[in-house]
């Protein structure tokens, strides 16, 4: 599986309140949530994002509230993958549980700028910046998490008897 797209670049501590502000949490419809994704730090995001695009950020991406609406909004906006130096732990598990690919790779994060074209190969963990021709390898997921991703999230994993 591969993802390819242009990059939206953010800094440290992007919290779930700016990914999807609480004032929009009176719905859980992914399309409606996506309309307001990143609105409080990047108003242009939702008008510019194209299917397949990639978010790259520095440390502690997704900190704060446990709202799954945050990865849901990102996924529904068309983003194919989030790369960051580190992720906040609840966001990390939520992303895996709903099947939004995320990769921790500080080296890649520092070598990618806003607007760069980036390709990600999830099978090998290889991240390539097509704009600069640099490439990096992210830590592969532990086996259990790979199984979760293969099953397309936790719900399907349980349906297949994974939690028995």
């Amino acid at each position, binding site marked *: 599986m591969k993802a390819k797209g242009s990059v939206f670049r953010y800094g440290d501590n992007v919290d779930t309140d700016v990914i999807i502000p609480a004032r929009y949490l009176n719905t859980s419809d992914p399309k409606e949530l996506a309309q307001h994704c990143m609105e409080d730090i990047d108003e242009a995001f939702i008008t510019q994002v194209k299917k397949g695009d990639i978010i790259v950020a520095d440390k*502690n991406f997704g*900190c704060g509230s446990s709202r799954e609406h945050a990865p849901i909004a990102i996924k529904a906006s068309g983003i194919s993958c989030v790369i960051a130096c580190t992720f906040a732990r609840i966001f990390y598990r*939520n992303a895996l549980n709903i099947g939004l690919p995320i990769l921790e790779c500080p080296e890649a994060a520092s070598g990618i700028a806003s607007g760069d074209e980036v390709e990600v190969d999830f099978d090998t963990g290889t991240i390539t910046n097509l704009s600069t021709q640099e490439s990096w390898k992210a830590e592969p997921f532990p086996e259990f998490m790979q199984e979760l991703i293969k099953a397309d999230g936790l719900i399907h994993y349980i349906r297949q008897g994974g939690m028995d």
Partner: protein
Amino acid sequence: MGMTMTQKILAAHAGKQEVRAGQLILAEVDMVLGNDITAPVAVREFEKIGIDKVFDTAKVAIVPDHFTPNKDIKSAEQCKMIREFSKRQGIEHYFEIGEMGIEHALLPEKGLVAAGEVVIGADSHTCTYGALGAFSTGVGSTDMAAGMAVGKAWFKVPPAIKFTLTGKPSQWVSGKDIILHIIGMIGVDGALYSSMEFAGDGIAHLSMDDRFTMANMAIEAGAKNGIFPVDHKTISYLAEHADRSYTAYAPDDDAEYVREYVIDLASLRPTVSFPHLPDNTRTIDEVGDVPIDQVVIGSCTNGRIEDLRIAASILKGRKAAKGMRLIIFPATQKIWKQALQEGLLEIFVDAGAAVSTPTCGPCLGGHMGILAEGERAVATTNRNFVGRMGHPKSEVYLASPAVAAASALTGKITGPDALDHTIGRNQADES
């Protein structure tokens, strides 16, 4: 190599003799929690699994607290959905308006969490119950759905950071000041993926309400959980609230900690977090002149009876500054009633406060106290992110109930120990 308190609880719930940091485990859970924002998503996911009934109707708690009493039609629809789900499923711990409260104040009060238990909640501040010596952590809605279906959750066993608290805090230093100090010291990702394990003789000076406040904000340092040892205060709290047996775990002497800090509580000062991150802290002596428009006292962090008593002791016989909006929301119905019986509500109203029914309300910029562009609030809540309490260009300063109450009186961020003088002068001006 020994285990920490958190690791022991997780091992017991995973049916293992021993677990190590980094290990992925499947653990049984004793309670699964959701609210009116996260439970609707969880219910939809639950229904996809194809299991008809929740694993145990006594081990699921659903608390509509964020946008309740319903703030608009959409939130009413969300609440209706989880109300009907709870009814259909026979969920024992569904709490309607009139008996409810903010989930993290409500669960311990109702005795739904005890020492040694594992609790997952689709709300990041589920870590609050670490005050009781339980392992509790925030998860997402899909985890909640899975928890409701099979009574289990997957965890990566966290490494631990030890905070040894020594000495006795001074009069105006509360659990809130201690945890703000710690977050300021280690940063909003200072405990990422880790458990924060509190230890030391200083804990004896902390009330249960102080400990709830501190465990509540472990997530603001990125931690998976925060946990306190079980002492006589925990035991009497549990005796009063939870009518069942429980296990008090203690860390092994040779438990492994990736980092250790020793904090002398006597040296701490009232502490305030400036916008827009909880780790942007300053002591009250360093805040300077910060005029404010609104003060909010309440939330799962500081809406308990002791918080209200402290606020009342400062507000008693005094008036909020002209133009100040002072909003006080007791965290549960029981606390509200207790505040009524103790005369605290009258003190608040006389001071010019609006006293709300229990709700998350302004804490997350939901309703009942939203900030306009450029406005500033001092709040006893736990997050001061961009737009957290309203307009993206508004500002939230996090503080203890004492600092919040004192600030409401003067109209700018003020420490309670500066108050007598200031208030005396204001009152003299008026007469």
